[in-house]
């Protein structure tokens, strides 16, 4: 079975632009979570979606938004990019909300904002 996949692998944007990152969960997993990992730091929780509904939200500005589709894949959108948005964006999937089940992480999307 394929693991969690994310696209693109790398992305370079300039300040003020908009970006969309994509995540496909493991088949059968209904929960997707997004994290931002700045170099040298631990991941910071951005969103969790379960059954297409937002299940949790971290302390990120409204420039960050996400959605989950009927096939449980997910998109993370970031508007008006800032230099500080440069990071590795990780997606994780689990069968249900991650309390009860192991999260499986994808390889991440490396976003560089110039």
């Amino acid at each position: 079975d394929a693991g969690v996949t994310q696209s693109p692998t790398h992305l370079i944007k300039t300040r003020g632009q908009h970006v969309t990152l994509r995540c496909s969960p493991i088949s059968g997993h209904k929960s997707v979570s997004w994290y931002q990992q700045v170099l040298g730091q631990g991941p910071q929780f951005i969103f969790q979606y379960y059954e297409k509904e937002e299940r949790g939200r971290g302390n990120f500005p409204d420039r960050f938004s996400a959605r989950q589709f009927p096939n449980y894949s997910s998109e993370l959108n970031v508007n008006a990019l800032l230099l500080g948005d440069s990071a590795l964006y990780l997606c994780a999937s689990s069968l249900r909300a991650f309390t009860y089940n192991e999260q499986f992480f994808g390889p991440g999307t490396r976003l560089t904002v110039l």
Partner: protein
Amino acid sequence: AQTVTQSQPEMSVQEAETVTLSCTYDTSENNYYLFWYKQPPSRQMILVIRQEAYKQQNATENRFSVNFQKAAKSFSLKISDSQLGDTAMYFCAFFLRGEVNRDDKIIFGKGTRLHILP
């Protein structure tokens, strides 16, 4: 607010030795979950071990075990018979189930970089 602290930014041990990674957390809640994640240089994060706060028994997964001290808010990871493949960043994480659906939160520490030396 909940916090997670990993006080050891970097550690090195010889192969086959035992190493303990420290993690402390702060919360006023009683029902939560704790995790240790491993992020090898290839960067894909892997769950190492999980502990429910209501369980007194320390979790064990093969060579990995935890020392969970709820009163002290301490959650350390012990790796026995360390192997070269254990070289990675290790993150301690705290999960709190929200009272309403949208309030679930997970918080990671800053990590400990562990080097296993041949």
